[in-house]
């Protein structure tokens, strides 16, 4: 319904003067789209009104499938409701006020699962979320399809492509008319894809209730991008934005730790429990300083290996703060590289408070502020190490 409302005024207002055939098509097309993916339970398919004798073979088959599906869903919903009440009783809570959130908590409590993937853990959700929706009837009782693109097999998808194409033609005409009057399309109004991305294949599949191949999705992206790059695309902002979603901001807000002051007025920042492998470090950075370093009471000699020393050096070199800060670190647990990595992480986060936001952003891009989640890989039976196999010997 909503889709139609969105499409329809757009088309009609823009195209009042266009050819009759197109107007005709639009009406028929929207009729087809009307029933597509309606999730409103109030809207029922008028299947009961259909007289059985007149129905075509296809319609009968569809009806059979639909009743089967509906009864199945009814059954599932019934079971879900019963299960919910049981669960509420088990947990000793009032079943009437038992919400989905409570269900999730109860399931997590009653069936604790160590499985890694959340999808693999036991769950109890409304059947409408668990079972994929089915398309409603796409043809009338005589077997005649509603949708003009029915025989493409993916009517909704191809109607989107079709809309894009017609709009492109329309824009071309508009641009021509502008140029005839010696007006150039406004360059300032030109649309960009900045800050947003196209609907993903999965989103588009959901929107159309049709399975799409990679190839088809690529087609869609090419078409919509062409529309977007048109000089007059600003006329269709609304239409294009239907297929866009805002880019998830990769720029996570780097919250620097609070700056404290010593008695003699030096600023310092402490970051506790900086992790890397099994090592944990507490790092304090004083600013201004002279480049003193103390790791568990020792200097850089705490690390014998040059690699570990360079790990400590890296954030300081990156921000050009080698001789401008003093560093105090205590580190425990883990091995050499773990210790060095933990201190590096701590220093980087401390330095965030003392450098410009641009430098912080560069540090983030360089990966200095990213926690390293990698852990030691376990040894497998039948293998020499985590990956290494025993030497293969014929016999």
């Amino acid at each position, binding site marked *: 319904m909503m889709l139609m409302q969105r499409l329809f005024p757009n088309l009609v207002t823009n195209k009042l003067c266009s050819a009759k055939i197109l107007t005709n098509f639009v009406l028929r097309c929207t009729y087809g789209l009307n029933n597509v993916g309606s999730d409103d339970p109030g809207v029922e398919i008028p299947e009961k009104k259909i007289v059985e004798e007149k129905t075509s073979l296809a319609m009968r088959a569809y009806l059979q499938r639909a009743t089967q599906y509906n009864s199945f869903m009814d059954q599932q919903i019934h079971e879900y409701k019963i299960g919910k009440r049981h669960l509420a009783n088990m947990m000793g809570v009032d079943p009437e006020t038992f919400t989905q959130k409570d269900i999730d908590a109860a399931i997590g409590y009653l069936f604790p699962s160590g499985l890694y993937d959340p999808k693999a853990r036991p769950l109890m959700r409304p059947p409408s979320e668990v079972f994929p929706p089915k398309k409603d009837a796409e043809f009338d009782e005589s077997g005649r399809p509603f949708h003009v693109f029915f025989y493409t097999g993916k009517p909704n998808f191809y109607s989107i492509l079709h809309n894009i194409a017609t709009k492109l033609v329309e824009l071309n005409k508009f641009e021509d008319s502008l140029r005839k009057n010696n007006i150039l399309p406004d360059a300032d109004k030109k649309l960009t894809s900045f800050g947003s991305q196209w609907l993903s294949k999965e989103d588009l599949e959901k929107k159309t209730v049709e399975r799409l191949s990679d190839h088809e999705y690529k087609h869609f992206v090419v078409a919509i991008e062409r529309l977007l790059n048109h000089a007059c695309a600003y006329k269709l902002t609304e239409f294009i934005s239907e297929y866009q979603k805002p880019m998830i901001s990769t720029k996570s807000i780097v919250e620097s730790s609070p700056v404290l002051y010593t008695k003699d007025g030096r600023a310092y920042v402490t970051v506790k429990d900086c992790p890397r492998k099994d090592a944990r470090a507490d790092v304090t950075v004083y600013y201004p300083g002279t*480049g003193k*370093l103390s790791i568990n009471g020792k*200097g*850089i*000699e705490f690390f014998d290996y*040059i690699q570990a*020393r*360079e790990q400590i*050096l*890296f954030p*300081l*070199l*990156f921000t050009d703060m*080698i*001789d401008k800060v003093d560093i105090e670190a205590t580190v425990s647990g883990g091995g050499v590289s773990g210790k060095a990595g933990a201190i590096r992480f701590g220093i980087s986060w401390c330095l965030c408070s003392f450098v410009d936001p641009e430098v912080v952003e*560069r540090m983030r*891009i*360089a*990966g200095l502020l990213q926690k390293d989640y990698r852990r030691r890989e376990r040894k497998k039976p039948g293998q020499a190490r985590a990956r290494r196999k025993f030497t293969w010997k014929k016999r």
Partner: protein
Amino acid sequence: MRAYRRVCNYATAAIKQEAQYQIPTAARTDKTNPADHDHHDESKFYTIDPKTITSLFQMGGLPKPFTEQTQMFAETALMVRKPALEVIRGLKLADYQKPVIRYLLYGQTGSGKSLSLAHILHYAHNSKFILYHIPYVPIWLKYDRKEVNWSTTKNGLADIPLIAAQWLKHFKHQNEVLLNELNLTTSQDYVWSIRETTPKGTILNELITHGINRAKYACDCMDILLNELKAHCSNNKCKMLVAVDGFNAFFNEKTDLKTEDRVRVTPQQISMVQTGLSAVLSDWNNGAVVMVTSPRAALNTKRESHLPIYLCGRQGFEHIDPFIPVMVPELTTTEFNNMLDYYEEKRWLQKTGGRKELEFLTSRLPAELMARCASL
């Protein structure tokens, strides 16, 4: 580092250096005699002529990486540093009629203790001291590839005859000219066996040669030589400098050595160690003792601190007490810059810059700096 370069958008190979840049020259001093060095020469380089190097350090005394570097640079340039100057000044001003003064150089691994000792040895050599120099104690006590026998003369002690003979060679090489000049003789008869005796009045060179040729008696020869020299010094016939590098190895808990009957010996059970320990006693005069304690000479389980009392233990500390401790610190900023200037002058470093990084990575320890500036 790689990530840094990626972010900064350049690669090592892409750095373009000015083809012509001023090659810096290191600050040097013209005074080749360490006796002339004073605080004006501090942090400057002085060159030791190759003849002295062969006569002094032919058979050990300079750390191996440093020797390799001198071969590369075709000169042996030492930096004049404060600890060595301090000891040299002490040697100049000491009253030689009093019991010997003992100096102890200590400091972190790679802070330049051995080279400071080399500087002091050069001074002593020029000032006509007889050098009783033990280049590095752990090479006596490490690596079980040595012939170890129970001593026939001293009960309960073990000899390492070949090592002792080698040391005698070292001693002879360092002091041959001076001994010939001084013409020192033995003060009593020494009977080695029925057929072999060294009569009273034999010159010491002959005694040493006997020790070298008859390695069986080398350990005893070492001991006798020390006693003779101590006596001569006390009689004001000569001056002697006892220098022991890796002194704290004398007080380690164990050695790698096993006797023929597969008994592990401790350092205290070795006759050469006992000789070394008696050398650093202050029961003689007209001389000096310079010792170096080093964490590297200790067992690898006992290297947390570089302080002498930790490394030598209570027993060792009491053995050398009282002594003058001389701390060998890391390089100062001037010394550090001069060192890098020297490397750039020698074209050992092809590019300038990066000094802050080097300073951070090496914490200004000269040996570390040498390793960092060398090829991989």
